[in-house]
């Protein structure tokens, strides 16, 4: 099935991801040697190693850095996958998980729970918000006369604007003292303070929702030639489209619940991958996931290390890197056509 270059590519990307995880955990404000970091992790994994670091340094490696690196990898992979699928489903190169209002809805749900004093239930709020935004988008699409890509996008824009306005109103109305700071850094997207629980949510969502979505690569290739062409190939177009949109909504909700609204990853990673692999989805989807994971690990490592002991919301870095990359991608597309 796979040709030589593809095998080399996937081996290379898996190696990049593994190296990213192994190296990223050695970076951070606390001055811990790479040797101590790996010994600590090995000890926790049950290997016969004694790391000998203090209780707190052990906690820094095992409770702070490793779950955060894994969360970054999962969010990067998930966002890139969602972006690639949205772009294929809507045949809109500008589509990404935020297009259908899911991210704004998730933000609204999370901020509502945060301001109501239920900070621990924030992920539940994000799930509910993303689900409500998805339902509203679907309903509006139906009211507009049925599911076409452009109608779904228009409905998504309306829902997104509504949820963003509601979020702004909540912040304006409820923020007391300096509590707005927490909300703003969360809306910008930040992986500060992620725990093993978060890592469980993100990894679970990527495995349970993301991997089945990979199987749709072949059908998505048929979509590229139009709904009729796909239908003649024996694909239940309507059913598959809504299945994929629903899965994307759930996955986005899980990712936003943990990391907030991290922008540009879902938009640029699929485009960058297309430049290298072409637009066949069977290859594009897994490659985008792997590259997105490594990209997110390094941007988050920069966010937590560059300005220590300060922390920067990682969404600022993904936007700073993402916007110029996106412009370059657009220019190359223009030259290619």
């Amino acid at each position, binding site marked *: 099935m796979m040709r030589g270059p593809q095998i080399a590519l996937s081996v290379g990307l898996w190696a990049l991801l593994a190296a990213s995880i192994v190296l990223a955990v050695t970076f*951070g*404000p*606390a*001055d811990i040697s790479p040797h101590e970091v790996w010994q600590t992790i090995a000890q926790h994994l049950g290997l016969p190693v004694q790391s000998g670091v203090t*209780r*707190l*340094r052990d*906690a*820094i490696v095992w*409770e*702070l*850095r490793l779950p955060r690196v894994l969360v970054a990898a999962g969010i990067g992979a998930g966002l890139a996958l969602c972006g690639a699928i949205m772009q294929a489903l809507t045949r809109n190169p500008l589509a990404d998980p935020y297009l259908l209002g899911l991210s704004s809805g998730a933000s609204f749900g999370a901020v509502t729970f945060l301001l109501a004093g239920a*900070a621990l239930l924030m992920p539940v709020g994000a799930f509910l918000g993303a689900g409500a935004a998805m339902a509203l988008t679907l309903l509006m699409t139906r009211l507009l006369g049925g599911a076409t890509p452009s109608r779904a996008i228009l409905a998504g824009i309306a829902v997104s604007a509504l949820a963003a306005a509601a979020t702004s109103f909540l912040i304006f109305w409820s923020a*007391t*003292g*300096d*509590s707005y*700071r*927490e909300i703003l*850094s*969360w809306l910008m997207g*930040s992986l*500060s*303070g*992620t*725990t*093993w629980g978060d890592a469980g949510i993100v990894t679970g969502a990527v495995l349970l929702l993301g991997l089945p979505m990979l199987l749709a690569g072949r059908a998505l290739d048929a979509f590229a030639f139009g709904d009729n062409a796909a239908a003649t190939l024996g694909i239940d177009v309507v059913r598959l489209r809504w299945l994929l949109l629903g899965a994307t909504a759930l996955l986005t909700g899980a990712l936003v619940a943990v990391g907030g609204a991290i922008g540009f990853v879902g938009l640029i990673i699929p485009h960058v991958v297309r430049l290298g692999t072409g637009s066949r989805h069977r290859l594009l989807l897994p490659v985008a996931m792997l590259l997105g994971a490594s990209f997110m690990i390094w941007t988050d490592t920069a966010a*937590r290390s560059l300005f*220590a*002991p*300060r*922390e920067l*919301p990682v969404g600022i870095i993904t936007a700073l890197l993402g916007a110029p990359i996106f412009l370059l991608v657009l220019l190359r597309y223009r030259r290619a056509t």
Partner: protein
Amino acid sequence: MRLSFHLVALAGLALSVAPAWAQTSYPLTLDNCGVAVTLAAAPERVVTIKSTATEMLLALGLGEKIVGVGFQDGPVPEPWAAAGAGLPVLAEKLPSQEVVLEAEPDFVYGGWESNFAADGVGERPSLTELGIASYVSPAACRSVKPVKLSFDGLFADIAEMGTIFDVTPAAEALIAEQKAELAAIVPDSRGLTAVWYSSGTKAPYVGAASNAPAMMMTALGLDNIMGTVDDGWISASWEAIVDANPDVIVLVDAAWNSAAQKKTLLAENPITSQLDAVLHERYLVVPFPASEAGIRNVGATADMAAQLAALTFDQ
């Protein structure tokens, strides 16, 4: 005999002249956070934004001049509670410019520079055009970097407020009282480190090197683990805090983020629960309005000194 007579006469002269020296001559021009403020006379109708501004005027006995307050951080404490009880509240949050103008102030005194925004009480130049003087708590200045806050700087701010309102004797009395209370505080000599935890959960907002938290921690004899960053407050990383493992954690008690909530969070989080200060519950609690530069800093420092003295570190 003649000499002592002269001395008595001189002393009498000095006493009769002293109030005249203290009197403010108007028009008064002063530089406040990069803005030249000119006052034709002592302000008579004042709007205060934030608790620090309100409490400053109450402490100087100027409560009668306050025609409106906005964005108060909590109840006015003793001994000014009675004076602060009947103040007209313009807004629970930041009042808009129109609401402020309706109170017809001649002086708007803001605790944060950001209060003076177009979508807040109005930008300072536009207030000036309307003949309304504006004043920002000097320690809260952002457009001009303020010098590192010290208690002497704070007393100079009180003196400046005395000059503005021509109540220098009251300001001097307040400064003398605060200096005496400050002098009575014995800095802790155990060489303890501390972090000033203001708010935030995922990225904690903590006191850095240059504002009220640093000033109070220094007076308490505490070594601020974030004292290397030249800023008032910063969004810090938990990793840096855990790595430093401070002996004591100062918890800011705000209505929206109470000390009790912070204690729960610290104890439940798998990483912060490992900190020595959390394991042994070595906390100092400071009310939010007293955690920003103002007349409550000295009292809050004395209170925290007592809390600190009660903590033991023999485990």
